[in-house]
């Protein structure tokens, strides 16, 4: 598993999506200033690891494989001083989402799917404008 994560990490670090390169404009600088810091995001992931929740209303929580990947990536992104997400939430099927609002019409996210895939998805005006598999 570690070699898989190392490979995926290289893919993630070489990805140059807007989430990764945030410091070029005043708008992005402003977003970065107000964004939830990585520390809080990572603590949230560890809280799910340390205190697993039961299925809630039929929604499965992320398992330890998904959590391990999300924690690893979050720590790598923090280490590389990437802009932190505004939200870290569970999806409806055992996955995890790091979401960052780019502007009033745009959102970008890393989606850690329950099957193990990781995707970078960028949306603008309710349209998917970029989609990059990260593994």
């Amino acid at each position: 598993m570690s070699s898989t994560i190392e490979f995926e990490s290289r893919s993630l670090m070489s990805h140059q999506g807007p989430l990764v390169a945030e410091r070029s404009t005043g708008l992005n600088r402003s977003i970065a200033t107000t964004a939830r810091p990585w520390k809080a995001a990572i603590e949230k992931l560890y809280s799910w690891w340390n205190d697993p929740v039961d299925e809630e209303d039929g929604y499965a929580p992320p398992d330890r494989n998904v959590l391990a990947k999300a924690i690893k990536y979050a720590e790598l992104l923090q280490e590389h001083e990437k802009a932190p997400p505004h939200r870290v939430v569970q999806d409806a099927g055992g996955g995890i989402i790091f979401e960052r609002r780019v502007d009033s019409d745009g959102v970008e996210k890393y989606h850690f799917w329950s099957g193990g895939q990781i995707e970078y998805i960028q949306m603008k005006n309710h349209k998917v404008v970029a989609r990059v598999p990260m593994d």
Partner: protein
Amino acid sequence: MSGEPIPIDDSEILYRRIPVSKEWYQKGIVYAEAFEPRPEELTGLSLFRKRFKSIEAVSRGLAKQGYFVASLKVADIRAAGISVVPRPETSDGWDDAHVELPELTGNVRGSDSAEEMQSKLAEIAMQLPVEGPFVRTSQ
């Protein structure tokens, strides 16, 4: 009660239940995950008709921290190109209030079309007040 499915009028309001613990509704914002189908929801995302079920009844469920309930106008959903169909036959029996969005199923989770529908639905859900949280008071 059973019989024929009752057609859904454009003027109707639908309710969508959102578990509080998932943080899919926060600080006045409904997020797209509130409309993400579970993997096993294979016939469509479930909502309920205000015409046939109270918001209090919709909010009754097993979620420990309770639910928020979002309201959506059928006309807005259809205007966004998303179908709404009555599905009164449920695992708990006949329920005239139960409807589904048949294009949004567990089979298409994560697809571009699903992401886009979820995003549109989240915006539609913010046209009307989100009620709650409704917290379970008894077992």
